[in-house]
């Protein structure tokens, strides 16, 4: 059975059809890619599945349960973690606090714990500290835990965002252009981290990418999107040679 299923999802922004008849099925542990030219609707699909927008039509199922109408925080709690295309880190929070924040829904000490510092709170905060440090260690920024996040170099910020997404214990991890704006060296490191995370935690990964190198090397199955519609789906090899994909990216050949 597939872990995450999307059936015939369509979304309109006013009169603009952003996504049309989109379907998806991810099995546990799979790495999938979503590519397409700028403005094809890739990020919109992410936002629809993670609940930022609610689709005009269609259904989204996680482990057989409908999550279409849930709020983003509920969906995240059920196991869809994500990163953002243009880093959405919190300006004044430390690196450690970023990762701890993603444990919000797992903390059960409640308001009384927050107000009065009960023993339960102290224990839970301590356990969360430990877990957060492990995740930061996994992505290789544990030594920066006390830093305010805006003081970090770009590559490290990306890693913090990844660690934060991992802290939500995702069953499917959504990565929105994880290597955007990186230099070739950082790109290789990021790919290694994604591989390592996948190996150690084993969740499914669904990623948007513009760099063909990343998608082709990481993904098992790739979908290509153009004007909100899937125009091709298959293994990297199939996608690379699909004339429709080439057309979408490079344009049609014109006979003179």
């Amino acid at each position, binding site marked *: 059975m597939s872990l995450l299923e999307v059936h015939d999802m369509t979304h309109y922004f006013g009169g603009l059809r952003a996504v049309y008849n989109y379907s998806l099925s991810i099995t546990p542990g799979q790495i999938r890619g979503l590519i397409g030219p700028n403005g094809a609707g890739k990020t919109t699909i992410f936002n629809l599945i993670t609940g930022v927008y609610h689709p005009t039509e269609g259904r989204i199922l996680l482990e057989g349960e409908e999550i279409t109408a849930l709020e*983003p*925080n509920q969906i*995240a*709690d059920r196991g869809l973690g994500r990163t953002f295309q243009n880093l959405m*880190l*919190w300006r004044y929070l430390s690196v450690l606090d970023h990762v701890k*924040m993603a444990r*919000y829904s797992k903390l059960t000490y409640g308001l009384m714990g*927050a107000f009065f510092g009960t023993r339960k709170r102290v224990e839970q905060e301590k356990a969360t500290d430990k877990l957060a440090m492990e995740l930061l260690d996994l992505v290789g920024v544990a030594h920066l835990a006390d830093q305010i996040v805006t003081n970090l170099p770009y590559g490290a910020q990306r890693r913090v965002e990844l660690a934060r997404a991992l802290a939500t214990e995702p069953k499917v991890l959504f990565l929105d252009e994880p290597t955007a704006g990186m230099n070739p060296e950082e790109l290789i490191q990021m790919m290694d981290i994604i591989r390592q995370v996948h190996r150690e935690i084993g969740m499914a990964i669904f990623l948007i990418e513009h760099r063909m190198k990343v998608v082709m090397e990481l993904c098992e199955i790739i979908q290509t999107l153009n004007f909100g519609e899937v125009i091709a789906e298959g293994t990297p090899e199939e996608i690379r040679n699909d004339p429709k994909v080439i057309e979408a990216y490079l344009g049609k050949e014109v006979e003179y």
Partner: protein
Amino acid sequence: MTTDSVSIPNSWQRFRAALSRFWQPYKTVPLLGWLLAALVAVGLEQFVGLPLAWVLGMSKIPALFGLVVALDNPILFPSALLFMILIYFLPMGIVARFTKPLMNKIAARLMEFPLVLTAVVHLGLMYAVLHIWGEISDYRILVARLAMIAIILTLSLNVVNGYMGEFSCSHPGFMALGAYVASTFTLVFFVTENKFGEALLPPALGPFLFPIGLILGGLVAALGALLVAVPSFRTRGDYLAIISLAFMFIVKSLFENMEIVGGARGISNQPNYASLPVVFVWTVLSIWIINNFVRSTMGKALNAVRDGELAANAMTVDTRKTKMVAFLFAAFWAGVAGGLFAHVLRYINPDSFGIRKLAEVLAMVYFGGLNSVTGSIVGAVGLSLISEALRPLDIFKWIIIPIMLILIMIFRPTGLVAFTEFNVEKLFRPKDREMEGGESVIA
């Protein structure tokens, strides 16, 4: 010309270097040492203060560290300054310096006990200092109590305007709700001579049941906050500022038109329950609880909501609930502060909770520093003292304080002590260990 522009920073640097050399031995004085020094100073003032004031040509001890004298009677300012040096600075410096090793040892020993005990020792000393300081005049007690109430208010507003990053204007409204509810509570139950008729309970119970009145006032204020929060937290932006401002005026005119609580004339004759220790305990309680809250992951969710609501939501944070809770929580403390305020002044009318109060609290928050418990304390105490010091200037006070605020906004846009964490444990720690390494390097 060029030599001038070079020599000015140099002399400034020399001054700073001299200052830091002077300050060096005091850096390792723990809080305990400072408290003991302050205790000695206020004790000294108690015994030799009045004769010394006479000798220096003043009729009485300068009430607020010579601040009021400075403008009220400038000719006496030098003697007030001398008084401050002889009674406060010199003895405090000497005591702090010579008890340093002992106090560091005691502080280190105290750290082995639970934090609560350490806190109680420090707070006990702090209260003793405040109490003895207040023995000198009733004016001091009044100022101290109002400053502490200002701390509660500022801190609670900082939760909304600083930590959560929304702009709320309804704090005077919440304060009014708390003040009226608590006043009605004490007047109905414990005071006979008023329009509510006979006291329903023996007045002797009053001081013990007073907290119930305050909490009741806080809860009603939180209920009022719910009315503001439900419509305004559906979206982000300026909505909260507008709705909360409207709420403040609605509350004000509500009480103006409620004859049962005196209408525009207000209510008076509240029993004198908000004494110095009572206000002190409530202030400590509010600082403790609010600080606990903002340091927990649940409280930091407020910062996450402020700095990026979309990301917070995607990281399992229930942003709506977080905002609601924080707003209601802040309103609760504003209500408690209102209740205390009513029982300190023992007279309130709807006008006490208008736009001027709002300006005062907002100024304290932005003066002290956003997103910071220390900042709120600094802002509340600082502006309370400044506003007392400027009292002789009457209306010009309201020109000088805004100008100060503008200057703060220009040079430190987030306030004096913004974006810091208030770590109680660190505050109580002995200071000699961490400094030893640094000192030896300098030597």
